[in-house]
């Protein structure tokens, strides 16, 4: 009998060392995996000639469940030809005897030993169709005895016997990845592709490996094995991207030089000398202090018995007047959204004069004349409102630049609060106890700066930034047929760009060029908009809002009623993105008949008639002059190239400033300009700081991390929260208690509890039978951002994904949108009853508050320690702080009862039933057995995992109650 040791991560280490030693050659102890893209046709037949490999990598055993994405161009995901062929080869030392060999593959595969075909699987049938086929596929997979890993996704399984006298055998395992339905390709994936062996007289299945260590083919060992596979492929992928990016260095190196010369040729922003007594850590603090002092001075005459502009007047103007009296097209030429313009007045002359009771403004708001009264429609102002305006004017119409929410700055946040905040803001989860302990023990004076650098280097950085980009660019993939304004899954391109800290000018250039595989995660997926009448008008609006702060949403059907922008400009940028002229359909216009109103000029105008033909043209000469382009465009004939260059050139200061504003808001809670996507409406609170930040972004090579470092090191970022602030202070005297995003909350709950984030795969075509255009596989999420809409508008229980649904329910209640049909630049953070309800009672929280064997707090609670220490540690681990005295008393008391006897000496485990999970996916979801099977799966998700038998049940319940209470405290939802 051979020696089978349980699989350990060590095997991957071993392999890496072997690879280093003999790069390029097939080490004897490893399996070489080759990908062949040519020499195959769509006939579902094995090629006569062995196809040539174009890529290869190494794995420890004849087992893969993925192949790397194909990278093209400058490091973006592309499309592999479908089908491709994957070939695994290696030399295995067989003991003598008669062995059973199992092969498992999604479609056609064949195993050849010493040149002789041993066993093969057939080509998958061409029937992705309507979901009711009862083909050869089993709802229940093959069962080869206890411990045997069931085929998870309907893979074909075949068993053969192999008898040998022992010694090395050349093993070749070839599998088809993808395939075609007619001419239409399926996804180029392999599924769980395995050769396993049960050696003579043995019922233990192992992965076939040339290496010295056997790997059992059980669920647990497979999970370790594939983790290793995923990690090693992730490294390989990063290296591939870096190598491909080198190919366009000849373009980007001069671009960097161009940015440097632009910086040198344009005047620097003067960093103000701050008034004395303000904390200064980076130049940002100079701007903040200077502005604060100015506004404080403007507000010096404030008193509680006087009308206060921001408290009394501004809300009134906002709700009753500003809708029409704002922006470049303000009605009557009169703006009430800017102090200076308001004082100047409009077509009817000055509206009011400070200190003078009689005014045009008061006359109009008190008038009953239908042609003169204000507001012209709806309820009249109340007498109280009129009195407010009247008194405000009489008292001098004071209109400071900004409200003064605090009379001083708060001091720096304490260390524990700082680390929790920093980690939530950079990597999206709170510190572990180890990290917290290390940070608190660190006595270096520059420890905050050191830890900022450390977290900027943390790969989880990309996870935390994903939601912002997904929202802003309306990333909206659907795992089933693309329908409601769905895009491709360009999340993978976003993620890899963020992970690699790709400079933003380069990233936006890739986005605009829309190359790569639209269904495989390349930026081409951004250009998709299923069932949309003018996809590129929608994309043009996204691009101009996200990167220029120009809101062209209205221009989809008519000119902006308030802004300076017209419908034509949207269609021009859309045409550039489309790289062809756009026609305006009637569905993207407003029927003039509907614009007829009584007496007054309509608020909106349609300047582009349906049927108009709009040529590609840069619509914003204001931001960048097309003449600066010449050195920056590789191919001037290419509309997308031109658009990319005009958007991202250093001369386009707006671009850098808009991006700097996004980054600033991400950390500081509000943009220097708000709304961030519509700069026509907003007044910069700190115009000089904004310019400075824009230039610093350029100076830092357009890298988000470089600008983030400046912000995170500022005193402004590091101030303590003022718990009474209800909005973000535009002067940054203190942060407010800020609600965390849905993703931060969900990720934090899993992270601090240590409960594995375990869901189904986000895919309804697990066996890859549907065509790429109709089904994608978004993988098994490990962070909240990786979820997507689960909705398929079909109401079929057999298409439900209950564990994902449980997580999505929490995310949705907290403001996440699974379907992003339109871009979003801010989330609703207001509380409602569903949020605490789903956190108190929901299915996901049941998993997180039940001490199961795989729960991170189970071992933690069993550790030898006094009960007081356990309480302290629970608070430290979950909330990054020690309990307050009342908390300590109550929790200690609660957990003392039964504490000494909590450990169960000989825990009894019920032998888990060896029952194959029922396999449900698109191809069989309409079979009558599928709905009941799905109902069982839903019930299992709702039940969650069994509690651990290692802890005495009564005390376990007490401990779970304590965990529940801490995780339900409002503190879990707020940034410290």
């Amino acid at each position: 009998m051979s020696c089978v040791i349980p699989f350990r991560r060590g095997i991957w280490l071993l392999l890496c060392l072997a690879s280093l030693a003999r790069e390029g050659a097939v080490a004897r102890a490893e399996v070489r995996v080759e990908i062949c893209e040519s020499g195959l046709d769509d006939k579902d037949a094995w090629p006569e000639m062995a196809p040539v490999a174009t890529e290869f990598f190494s794995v420890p055993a004849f087992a893969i469940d993925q192949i790397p994405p194909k990278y093209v161009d400058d490091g973006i995901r592309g499309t592999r030809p479908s089908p491709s062929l994957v070939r695994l080869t290696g030399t295995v030392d067989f003991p003598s005897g008669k062995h059973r060999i199992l092969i498992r593959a999604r479609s056609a595969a064949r195993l050849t030993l010493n040149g002789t075909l041993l066993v093969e699987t057939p080509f998958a049938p061409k029937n992705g169709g309507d979901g009711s086929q009862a083909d050869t596929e089993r709802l229940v997979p093959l069962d080869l005895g206890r411990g045997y890993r069931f085929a998870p996704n309907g893979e074909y399984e075949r068993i053969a016997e192999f008898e040998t006298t022992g010694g090395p055998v050349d093993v070749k395992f070839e599998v088809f990845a993808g395939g075609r339905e007619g001419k239409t390709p399926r996804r180029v994936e392999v599924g769980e592709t395995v050769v396993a062996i049960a050696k003579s007289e043995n019922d233990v299945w192992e992965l076939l490996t040339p290496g010295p260590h056997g790997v059992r083919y059980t669920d647990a060992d497979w999970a370790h094995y594939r983790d290793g596979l995923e990690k090693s492929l992730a490294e390989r992928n990063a290296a591939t991207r870096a190598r491909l990016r080198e190919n366009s260095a000849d373009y980007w190196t001069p671009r960097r030089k161009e940015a440097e010369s632009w910086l040198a040729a344009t005047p620097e922003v003067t960093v103000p000398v701050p008034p004395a007594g303000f904390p200064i850590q980076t130049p940002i603090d100079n701007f903040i202090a200077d502005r604060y002092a100015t506004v404080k001075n403007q507000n010096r005459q404030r008193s509680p018995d006087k009308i206060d502009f921001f408290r009394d007047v501004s809300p009134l103007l906002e709700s009753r007047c500003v809708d029409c009296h704002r922006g470049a097209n303000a009605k009557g030429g009169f703006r009430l959204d800017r102090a200076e313009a308001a004082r100047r007045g409009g077509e009817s002359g000055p509206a009011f004069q400070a200190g003078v009771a009689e005014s045009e403004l008061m006359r109009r708001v008190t008038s009953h004349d239908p042609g003169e009264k204000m507001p012209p429609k709806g309820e009249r102002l109340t007498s109280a409102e009129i009195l407010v305006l009247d008194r405000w004017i009489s008292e001098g119409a004071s209109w400071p630049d900004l409200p003064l929410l605090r009379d001083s700055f708060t001091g720096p946040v304490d260390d524990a609060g700082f680390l929790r905040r920093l980690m939530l803001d950079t990597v999206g989860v709170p510190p572990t106890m180890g990290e917290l302990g290390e940070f608190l023990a660190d006595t270096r004076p520059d420890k905050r700066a050191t830890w900022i650098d450390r977290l900027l280097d943390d790969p989880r950085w990309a996870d935390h930034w994903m939601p912002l980009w997904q929202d802003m660019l309306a990333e909206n993939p659907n795992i089933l047929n693309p329908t409601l304004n769905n895009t491709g899954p360009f999340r993978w391109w976003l993620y890899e760009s963020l992970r690699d800290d790709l400079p933003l000018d380069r990233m936006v250039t890739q986005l605009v060029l829309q190359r790569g595989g639209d269904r495989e995660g390349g930026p081409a997926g951004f250009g998709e908009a299923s069932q949309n009448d003018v996809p590129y008008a929608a994309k043009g609006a996204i691009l101009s809002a996200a990167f220029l702060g120009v809101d062209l949403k209205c221009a989809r059907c008519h000119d902006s009623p308030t802004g300076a922008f017209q419908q034509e400009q949207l269609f021009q940028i859309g045409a550039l993105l489309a790289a062809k002229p756009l026609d305006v359909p009637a569905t993207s216009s407003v029927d003039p008949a509907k614009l007829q109103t009584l007496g007054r000029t309509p608020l909106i105008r349609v300047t582009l008639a349906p049927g108009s033909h709009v040529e590609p043209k840069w619509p914003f000469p204001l931001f960048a002059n097309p003449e600066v382009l010449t050195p920056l465009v590789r191919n001037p004939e290419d509309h997308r190239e031109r658009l990319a260059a005009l958007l991202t050139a250093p001369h386009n200061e707006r671009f850098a400033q808009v991006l700097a504003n996004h980054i600033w808001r991400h950390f500081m809670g509000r943009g220097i300009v708000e709304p961030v996507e519509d700069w026509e409406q907003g007044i910069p609170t700190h115009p000089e700081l904004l310019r400075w930040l824009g230039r610093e972004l350029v100076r830092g090579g357009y890298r988000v991390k470089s600008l983030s470092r400046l912000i995170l090191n500022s005193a402004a970022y590091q101030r303590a929260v003022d718990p009474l602030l209800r909005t973000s202070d535009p002067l940054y005297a203190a942060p407010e208690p800020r609600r965390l995003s849905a993703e931060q909350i969900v990720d934090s709950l899993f992270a601090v509890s240590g409960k594995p984030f375990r869901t189904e795969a986000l895919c309804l075509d697990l066996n890859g039978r549907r065509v790429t255009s109709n089904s994608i596989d978004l993988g098994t999420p490990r962070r909240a951002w990786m979820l997507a809409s689960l909705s398929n508008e079909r109401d079929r229980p057999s298409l439900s994904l209950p564990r994902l649904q449980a997580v999505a329910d929490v995310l949705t209640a907290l403001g996440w949108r699974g379907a992003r049909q339109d871009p979003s630049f801010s989330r609703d953070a207001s509380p409602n009853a569903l949020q605490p309800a789903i956190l108190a009672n929901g299915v996901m929280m049941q998993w997180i508050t039940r001490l199961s064997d795989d729960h991170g707090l189970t071992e933690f609670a069993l550790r030898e320690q006094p009960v007081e220490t356990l309480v302290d540690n629970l608070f430290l681990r979950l909330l990054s702080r020690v309990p307050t005295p009342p908390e300590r008393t109550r929790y200690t008391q609660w957990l003392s009862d039964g504490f000494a006897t909590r450990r169960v000496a000989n825990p009894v485990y019920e032998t888990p039933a060896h029952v194959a999970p029922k396999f449900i996916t698109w191809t069989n979801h309409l079979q009558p057995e599928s709905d009941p099977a799905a109902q069982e799966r839903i019930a299992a998700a709702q039940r969650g995992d069994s509690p651990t038998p290692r802890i005495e049940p009564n005390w376990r319940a007490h401990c779970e109650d304590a965990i529940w209470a801490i995780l339900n405290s409002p503190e879990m939802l707020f940034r410290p």
Partner: protein
Amino acid sequence: MTSPLARRDLLKFSLAAAANALARPAWGEPSNTPPLGKAEHCILFWLGGGMAQVDTFDPKRLGDAHSKPSRSGSYYNSIETAVPGVRVTEHLAQTAKVMDRVTVVRTVNHRVVDEHAFATNLVHTGRTISGSTVYPSIGSIVAQQRGPVDPAVPAYMLIGIPNVSRGPGFLGAKHGFVYLTDTNSGPAGFSRPIDVDSQRVANRLALLEPTQQRFPSDSLPADYRSAQAEALRLSGPEFMRHFDLTQESGSIRQRYGGEFGQRCLLSRRLVQAGVRFIEVSHNLNFINGTGWDSHRSGQQQLHGLIQELDTALSALIEDLERQKLLDKTLIVVATEFGRPAAFDDGGGRGHQGSTFSLVLAGGGLRHQGAYGVTDDDCKEILENPVSIPDFHATIHAALGIDPRHELRDGARPVSITDGGIPIAKLLS
């Protein structure tokens, strides 16, 4: 400690007063308001997949799915109803008897691609997608316009699987639904785990209390604390008792029939509890395999689904009438599109959005049995076409909502329906 923000404003799912202040007449002053009904509640049945109108509410000559070639027409015989001249399929025998409380709108039509998601979205929102905003579902609009009847309960509930089309769109999460997938599970989030009894809830709250008290009142975390109190109330017996169908008599439960019927019975209880809008999914697909999406073999057992619908719909009409709630409760039977009279190669039916039937019942409307006329192939509309916006406008009008009023998507006014005109004959 209470927050100075009125707790109701903060926490309620939907607030009628505030919402109505925002609703303004579309495109200037309305010249004349359409007649508005007095219904207080709406129960919308969703028949996902596309109900075949020729096999249900708009029967035609009998076809033959199995002859070669197949002959188009209804799959089942039709029968007389309580309204002379209005016929329905034989499998709607119970509904036929109360047809005078029902109007089948037989001439609903949309010209979109006959694709499930797109059509489902259109029938729920009344609009096609643009990518510049997300339109709210009719449930969310009604919830936002009128709020819950009783402020202690949600305005909008769903018995079914959450999806995008049923969502609140630009109206925001507070106008979304609270959902339960079936009558065995309570509403997601509000039903307590089985192993958490009231004693354990009390224990947990005692532990939660000191952590909540770290924040001053009038702070943002204190607002959340108030939301927690509201959630606690909704997870308690006062709200949860509505979901306990064992409180109904055995005979009434039997009258409503299978799981779909039980969902309808639960809907009636929710109406009584003060919920404004309830969407009930008829997704008992195991009955025929395909559910209402009766391609090919799905046709063979379709009558199983129809009978279940018949039992539940007629029971609900009778029960509401007995409780004096029928005039106050509009029942809508909706689906994303219909199906052609011709059969596909497997003896089932494809999709047809250009002519199909949706059904209205109760709600104080002047019912006709049927409205609108289609040709013998149920392909062309002969009289009184009704667009999706018109159908929505009729629902809104029945519920006392002027369909021309405007909602606000940020600064943008969006009228409740896209130019829909209520069916005057049902409202006058």
